[in-house]
């Protein structure tokens, strides 16, 4: 192992890579250079081609043109396995490891410690525990990965890639589902790896993180290379302009002045609502035109609250009311019938129907609400799809594309469109901005505000406290699957939220923040 980075030698060199999917030209003659020991951010809007570039480099997609060199030597991996052999370890955007295997098996799949042709289970678990300990995780590694939250699954995927101790580590949106604390741990590890002259490619839509960790930045737009800069010498606004190809007033992180509410009408209220072993009974009032944020650490029960409110999970006690009238929320159908909508955080397994087109995905909830006998005509579907593709700037703007072929962020927008199309009275959004680019991020926050002004009631979960503070009128803080505090008006700020989260326990997160 050499000492210190050798900036003269490009570790990973990508020249003139092109890739088309049928008529869509996802990459056009893209160049990319990664030096040993640097952390290199790969940025661009949703659908710019970041993930595609990564998959082409690692041989998941065959490429149409171009060459890839590693350490000066040309490589042409034909599978992820071959890429690993060539020294590239990758955490793909749709990480999803294998939920049916144990955590340990996931970490060591295809490279388990062996003796006499037999996997050394004990040794493997031991190593798995040690490896995860580096990431601050202490979990039962023999349990199936699917038992754990998305965040833990994500950390596991990263740990696996890191442990491959390759020369190049590629992380495609690794931080999307992590909280601050975990991001800190990840960054610490990335810095260490970079010191060992490993080159790291980092994809993220969190510009703060990009500025915090990266040495250089490469920006893609519409499948083309826009430019490569030193992070230190690239102003934020300039970066955003490179990404979007236009200016964007960076106002998103400012808390809107407390809005005057014309009405104080209650849209939905929950009283002593809860489910044993899931979320402790809580009281929650959602008013028309109001955004309520849910904040808390991973596993604090935010998703659970959202599912109960929507009806995806049955409560075992308490009352739910919609506009004052008692209702029973037994299934998502009930929720939909009462005018609720829910964008789940696990977009791929619980959100999109990959095979169906953008149009059909958008029309789905509205159709379900209208019932079988009142089918949306093709013309109505086209009309709805066209409206939302334009409104949310879904790219490519082709409503007849199977949603599975869209980039991650655009899939998220399609889900949002699905619920907006039902003109709901209450929308529950679980991590709506996850994986969404700066432009769209601002767009979605603007949209959230607009929707409120139209009288919609919103319940939003986000791990981005800044973001929550930006749009929430009230914030409910959760801890250990119970609602512990409700902040309103002037009291809504990051400090207060952190204080409530940390309350009596050791304020790990607080330290991380300050």
């Amino acid at each position, binding site marked *: 192992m050499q000492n210190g980075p050798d900036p003269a030698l490009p570790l990973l060199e990508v020249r003139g890579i092109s890739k088309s999917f049928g008529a869509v030209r996802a990459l056009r003659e893209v160049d990319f250079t990664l030096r040993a020991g640097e952390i290199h951010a790969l940025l661009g809007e949703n659908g710019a081609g970041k993930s595609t570039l990564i998959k082409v480099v690692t041989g998941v997609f065959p490429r149409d043109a171009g060459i890839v060199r590693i350490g000066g030597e040309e490589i042409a991996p034909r599978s992820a396995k071959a890429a690993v052999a060539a020294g590239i370890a990758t955490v793909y955007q749709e990480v999803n490891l294998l939920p049916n295997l144990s955590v340990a098996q996931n970490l060591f799949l295809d490279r388990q410690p062996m003796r006499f042709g037999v996997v050394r289970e004990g040794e493997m678990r031991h190593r798995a525990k040690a490896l995860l300990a580096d990431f601050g995780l202490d979990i039962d590694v023999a349990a199936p990965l699917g038992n754990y939250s998305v965040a833990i699954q994500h950390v596991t995927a990263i740990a696996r890639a890191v442990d491959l101790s390759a020369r190049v580590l590629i992380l495609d949106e690794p931080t999307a589902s992590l909280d601050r604390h975990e991001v800190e741990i990840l960054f610490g590890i990335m810095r260490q790896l970079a010191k060992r002259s490993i080159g790291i490619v980092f994809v993220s839509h969190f510009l703060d993180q990009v500025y915090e960790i990266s040495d250089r930045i490469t920006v893609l737009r519409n499948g083309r290379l826009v430019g490569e800069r030193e992070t230190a010498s690239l102003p934020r606004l300039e970066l955003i302009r490179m990404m979007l190809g236009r200016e964007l007033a960076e106002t998103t992180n400012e808390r809107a002045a407390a809005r005057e509410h014309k009405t104080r009408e209650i849209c939905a209220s929950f009283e002593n609502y809860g489910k044993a072993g899931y979320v402790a009974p809580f009281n929650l009032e959602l008013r028309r035109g109001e955004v309520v944020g849910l904040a808390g650490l991973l596993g604090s029960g935010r998703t659970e609250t959202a599912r109960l409110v929507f009806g995806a999970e049955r409560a075992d006690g308490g009352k739910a009311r919609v506009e004052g009238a008692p209702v029973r929320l037994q299934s998502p159908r009930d929720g939909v019938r009462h005018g609720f909508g829910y964008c789940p955080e696990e977009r791929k397994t*619980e959100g999109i*129907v990959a095979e*169906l087109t953008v149009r*059909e995905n958008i029309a789905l909830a509205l159709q379900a609400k209208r019932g079988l006998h009142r089918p949306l005509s093709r013309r109505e579907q086209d009309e709805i799809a066209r409206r939302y593709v334009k409104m949310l700037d879904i790219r490519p703007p082709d409503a007849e594309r199977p949603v599975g072929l869209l980039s991650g962020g655009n899939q998220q927008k399609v889900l949002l469109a699905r619920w907006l199309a039902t003109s709901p009275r209450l929308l529950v959004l679980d991590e709506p901005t996850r994986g969404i680019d700066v432009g769209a991020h601002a767009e979605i926050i603007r949209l959230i505000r607009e929707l409120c002004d139209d009288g919609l009631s919103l319940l939003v979960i986000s791990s981005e406290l800044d973001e929550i503070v930006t749009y929430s009128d009230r914030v409910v803080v959760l801890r250990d699957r119970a609602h512990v505090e409700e902040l309103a008006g002037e009291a809504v700020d990051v400090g207060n939220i952190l204080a409530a989260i940390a309350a009596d326990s050791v304020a790990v997160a607080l330290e991380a923040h300050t």
Partner: protein
Amino acid sequence: MTALLPRRGLAQILALIVILAVDRVVSPQFFDLRLQDGRLFGSLIDVLNRGTPVALLSLGMVLVIATRGIDLSVGAVMAIAGAIAASLADTHSLAVVLAAALGAGLICGLWNGFLVAVLGMQPIVATLILMVAGRGIAQLITEGRIVTFSSPGLVWLGNGAILGVPVPVAIALGMLILTGAVVRGSALGLLIEATGGNARASELAGVGTRAMILSVYVWCGVCAALAGVIAAADIMGADANNAGLWLELDAILAVVIGGTSLFGGRFSLVLAVLGALIIQTMNTGILLSGYPPEFNLLVKAVVVLTVLLLQSPKLTGFAGIAARLRRTKA
């Protein structure tokens, strides 16, 4: 009805044409048609007529498969419906006979749907139960005999003709149009495809996935019952031991040849029926060819594989490998 037109049926149509051409080679009179007792007569008509039961089965099966299910019991349901129809034929009116037989199919479908949608059993074993027990029920009705009948109404269903077209063929066509109208005319088609594509996501979007699953099994049962009645009417008797035996495999094959994935999602009714015709064109060709029967299965295997490879998502498979090899060498 543009909604009924195949979205992507080129491979299937091509396969059908090729097999028809081969049939013409093994049997020069293959395309001959004449009118015989007010009924069209010729090998082509045989293909349509004999293909009817599988075509009907595939109409139900394609919907079940679209929801990511499978129904192994259709052959047994055919036997049950045939047995009921035959036992009632000579003593009851045609309407009663049909109602009883189709009603039995509906109940069978409900049972399967209940096991899959409500009890959450895996479709293949859930329907295996009725596949085994159903034939027993059919035999119980006939006591293992071939129950014959002579009710002209029912016989007409199997052997009559409307404007020269055999009644079974007309019925199959009618069912195709009816199913198409119901499925594509309402939102059912979209909701079924959504359920099959991602049941959890659909459920969360407010789709009543259980109701979808239940209804497709019911429809599959009804289609199978109709196929059973026609099969019985055809031979003027109910042969509970053999009616529909192994036809579930042909129906599944037809659906897959019709381009519907066994993993659910997108489906095409027309192409499933086309798949049934492809299978029957091949079968009739085998019968006409005069080869000894020991070859039947081999020919079938080869044809099936060829048809599938033709429409393989990766016919580029070989081409792709060749291209990669070239690239790595270069």
